[in-house]
């Protein structure tokens, strides 16, 4: 029943949508469909190998059919003389993902906005332009889901926890469907697996950190070990000593855990959520003002753009499950249709351009519209 729309058949409705994005100041681009596979594998993880169409050129370099347009548009921008300056791009074209029985070719329209330092305003503009897309296709009141990865990151940064715990919590926020369950696993797991050198670690924990570091480094050096498998002796020593810190508190402190759970339970419209977050931060003495300020400022810009903020379903636990988002994330869903993935989805990815080789940090935000879904064509995720 599903017919694949190809880039060769102009879709006038989608063209009109992208035309509107062009008039709003976004330059239309069309990166090559065949892309080097490396950046996708590097940024999206090895798991994506299962879902992308890989091939190789005569020199053995891995190529793939682009599984999204964010990375290709980002790379072209970085390679251009405009790299680093504030630039906005829009696109319309196919992406390719192995989805089992569903068609592999998916047509997406979308926007990527680079280099804008007015982050709250840029975030709000993305959601507003996303809503223009659903309105353009006659979906009057899509469900708006919103999250802010930056809030959780600032919570973790503000907590009094060992670096290893912080890394784990941030990584797993993006990964796991249920962080509550994940906290259980982490707590139990560490309790059961005491480090091999528990006694030594406990002794080292009470010693001068610099001296302990020097001791471990020396011991490894005596064994003739310098750099092994890309990790330096200093790096190994450092994490070995971090385990000493973890060893002192082999389980996540109860009050910390309950604080994280309270934090992640906060949901509602952005105004309600902001009030609850401020109250929680005040009672726990958490310094997360700058993330909260950004959050409230964004809500203000959304209202100024005519978005009914009370319709937004915000949750602190919502993260879209993708590594490269660093702040605002959102999805639009059709409330009247069977759940089959978002109509529009996007967010902020301030670290992506750095990981693609940008010399200095470049803020970035964008979204993609699933054309078959908004057009009601039956394309499913």
């Amino acid at each position, binding site marked *: 029943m599903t017919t694949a729309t190809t880039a060769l058949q102009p879709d006038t409705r989608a063209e009109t949508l992208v035309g509107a994005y062009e008039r709003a100041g976004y330059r239309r681009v069309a990166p090559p469909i065949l892309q080097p596979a490396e950046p996708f594998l590097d940024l999206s993880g090895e798991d994506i190998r299962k879902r992308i169409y890989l091939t190789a050129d005569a020199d053995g370099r891995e190529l793939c059919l682009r599984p999204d347009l964010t990375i290709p548009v980002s790379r072209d921008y970085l390679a251009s003389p405009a790299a680093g300056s504030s630039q906005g791009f829009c696109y319309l074209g196919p992406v390719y993902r192995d989805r089992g029985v569903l068609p592999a070719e998916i047509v997406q329209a979308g926007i990527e906005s680079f280099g804008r330092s007015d982050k709250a305003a840029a975030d709000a503009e993305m959601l507003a332009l996303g809503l223009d897309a659903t309105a353009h296709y006659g979906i009057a009141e899509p469900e708006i889901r919103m999250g802010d990865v930056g809030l959780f990151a600032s919570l973790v940064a503000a907590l009094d926890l060992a670096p290893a715990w912080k890394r784990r919590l941030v990584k797993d926020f993006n990964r796991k469907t249920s962080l509550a369950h994940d906290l259980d696993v982490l707590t139990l797991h560490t309790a059961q697996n005491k480090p091999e050198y528990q006694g030594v670690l406990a002794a080292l924990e009470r010693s001068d950190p610099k001296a302990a570091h020097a001791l471990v480094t020396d011991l490894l050096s005596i064994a003739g070990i310098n750099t092994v498998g890309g*990790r330096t002796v200093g790096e190994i020593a450092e994490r070995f000593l971090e385990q000493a810190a973890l060893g002192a508190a082999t389980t996540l402190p109860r009050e910390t855990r309950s604080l994280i759970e309270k934090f992640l339970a906060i949901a509602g419209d952005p105004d309600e959520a902001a009030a609850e977050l401020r109250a929680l931060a005040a009672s726990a003495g958490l310094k997360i003002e700058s993330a909260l300020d950004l959050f409230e400022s964004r809500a203000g810009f959304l209202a100024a753009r005519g978005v009914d903020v009370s319709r937004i379903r915000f949750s602190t636990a919502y993260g879209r499950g993708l590594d490269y988002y660093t702040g605002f994330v959102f999805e639009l869903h059709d409330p009247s249709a069977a759940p089959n993935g978002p109509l529009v989805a996007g967010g902020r990815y301030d670290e992506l351009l750095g990981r693609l080789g940008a010399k200095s940090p470049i803020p970035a935000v964008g979204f993609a519209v699933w054309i078959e879904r908004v057009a009601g064509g039956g394309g499913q995720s």
Partner: protein
Amino acid sequence: MSAPLIVAVPSKGRLQENTEAFFGRAGLQLVKPRGARDYRGAMADLPGVEVAYLSAGEIADALAQGTVHLGITGEDLLRETIADMAKRVVVIEGLGFGFANVVVAVPQAWIDVRSMADLDDVATAFRLRHDRKMRVATKYVNLTRDFFSRFGIVDYRIVESSGATEGAPAAGSAELIVDITTTGSTLAANGLKIVDEGTILRSQASLVAARGAAWGDAEREIARRILDRIAAQARARACREVRTRFPGCDEAMLSQAKERFGVVAPFGGPTSSGMLTLHCPPAAVYDLASFMRERGAQSIVVAAIDYVFAPDNPLYARLIAGL
């Protein structure tokens, strides 16, 4: 004549020797009528079988595609090569050779890494510090990806390696490896250690059937005969035949022997003159002999046997159930 039943066997090394010995024990001699260099052979005394000599990796592919009916290859290669393994092949039996584990191994100098949870943490820390992901050298791309995913490890890249994988960390082309090991001595020689809970798979050479092959009545019949001989031989190998005759040999003694030594009496209980044949697990033979001598046996003869044919054929039953 109808199309032959194709049996794929490893074309070189220890795996080939062990496979030939395995079929040989079952009275199925692999022959190459057109000379030793030929990659097609047959089974002596069993017409209708074609033996295809392939590399262990090719055998896994051929089984997945259904271009051969039966094959012998390592379970590691099956699981790595065939994504939807249960749909494509039936593992009939592990053969008790070609044992090897697929493991995650890191440099011994990583004293801060013991468990997979440590590795997860190191992977993330590595990315944050070096602005690139930790590299895992392996030929087991799929096994590695699934295993790492189970532990929530995301910050890594796979570097495909087809030989001397264990040298990759020392050579600087990867940080750690996923590779096959039998004793762990090669890993140790390369300054590597196995991570706790890092054993992805305990593998052995296995007899496997391809579900996608053409399984007509003729093919099934030939497979039944092959598997019947293998099963008969396996049954025979699992026991020794013990024969004796003495007056005290009665039903009471027999039931006691069954209980204590796990023996079976293939031809029924003792005759009126006290003659009895038993099949006894090899490890219990001496204890059984002592037990019977205490009860008056003068002479007990123990022999290894070649085949024990029985009405049932568990290997063939497994094949048919799986197809």
